[in-house]
């Protein structure tokens, strides 16, 4: 990703306020840029911006740069940064908070596609069957065909059943999946 110099026009105070008022937002302003998050992160070297940089960018309200960076999607959610931050900022939870905001802004990538497929499968069946998930995701990512030999090796060990695991009754799930919108409305 090409990094542009920060200019005053990049700063979006509405975005900054939006993040600061979330549960993870209250401590964001206390970040002193020590970098223990980036040092603890197993994948920071692959990120457009390290966790430390991302926290600073949220402080500045750099909406476009934050939401279009690969940082929030590459995060493996290992929580190493969160348990080490001396300010109790929880960068992993910050990444989680930014995901629905990025999706609402129309950001799309492989991770968004997979998360969408995953959420749809859960909403419909209540449970995640690996074969169904991978087949549906492969429709949007043709490169997945390369995984065919791996899939077959799993099938040979009876670890990838073709049957779909379903709950008996999924009627509550629709309401649960609306909780996200609902909790945002109340704020």
């Amino acid at each position, binding site marked *: 990703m090409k990094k542009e110099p920060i200019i005053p026009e990049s700063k979006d105070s509405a975005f900054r306020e939006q993040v600061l008022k979330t549960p993870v937002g209250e401590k964001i302003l206390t970040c002193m840029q020590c970098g223990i998050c980036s040092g603890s992160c197993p994948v920071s070297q692959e990120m457009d911006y390290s966790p430390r940089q991302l926290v600073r960018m949220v402080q500045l309200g750099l909406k476009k740069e934050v939401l279009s960076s690969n940082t929030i999607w590459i995060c493996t*959610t290992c929580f190493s940064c969160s348990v080490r931050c001396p300010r109790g900022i929880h960068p992993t939870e910050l990444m989680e908070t930014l995901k629905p905001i990025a999706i609402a802004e129309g950001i799309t990538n492989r991770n968004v596609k997979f998360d969408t497929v995953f959420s749809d499968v859960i909403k419909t069946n209540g449970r995640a069957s*690996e074969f169904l998930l991978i087949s549906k995701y492969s429709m949007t990512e043709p490169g997945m065909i390369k995984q065919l030999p791996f899939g077959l090796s799993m099938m040979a060990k009876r670890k990838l059943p073709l049957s779909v695991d379903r709950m008996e009754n999924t009627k509550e799930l629709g309401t649960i*999946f609306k*909780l996200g919108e609902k909790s945002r409305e109340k704020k």
Partner: protein
Amino acid sequence: MKYSYYPGCAQHGTAVDYRISVEAVFGRLGIDLEEVKNWNCCGALHVPDRTVKTGLSARTLASAKGLDMATPCNLCYSNLMRAHAALEDSALRTIVNEALTEKYDGNAKPKHLLEVIVKDLGLPKLTEHVKKPLKIKAVPYYGCLLTRPENDFDSPQNPKSLDELILSLGAEPAKYYYKTKCCGGPILITDEELALGLAKELLVMAKETGADCVVVTCPMCHLQLDAKQKAVESKFNIKIDLPVIYFTQLMGLAMGFDPKELGLSQHLVPTDKLIAKIGGRP
């Protein structure tokens, strides 16, 4: 000892070997795991909205019928634990309960199966069931979500419970500095190259300890380190050939079960040499 039991999705698919060993071992120990009916997925790491995930776990916890809820999976455990903590907030609890038929009351405490063994049963009690002390060296690999972000049975950064379990089965826990480093599982599907790089680091370091196997507590870690080990070997042109087994399989071997009763023939990395060293029939 009785728990409501939340198996999680992987037990019906990629972690069927884990399920077989859990049933065998917990049955022998007399720990009753009563599977909750009509359970739903916890959202793993792929339902992006946190409140939705809290709702999914709340629904599962609400079905626990006054018992604590045990689960074999690190992802499920961390989601249940986080929901349990988040739902202390009464405003959130009200919003979530509006969506649920059976209401969440916060009484069921989530417990990982490892916690059930080391804390509730206790290792001295477990050793009474050891018939064949394991004269092997095993790498304790905890992964991320067993102890982070929430847990109340071990240290988030330097856990010891699995080390102690290995020791109580007569085996030697290897000194392993990567024991809580991420295996890359959550990004395997969307960024395989990066995910395999993380798995390689763990496997190479595990191999260097000279251990006979790696012991895991999570289906995702197992998928990365066992099922994807071959992919790591060919991508980086290295030889690992290190069996990766669930802690319940390790317990089963020490308790004298036949390896077949523990799902050990369903691994992608052959477990024959490990079983031969223990003195069992593969």
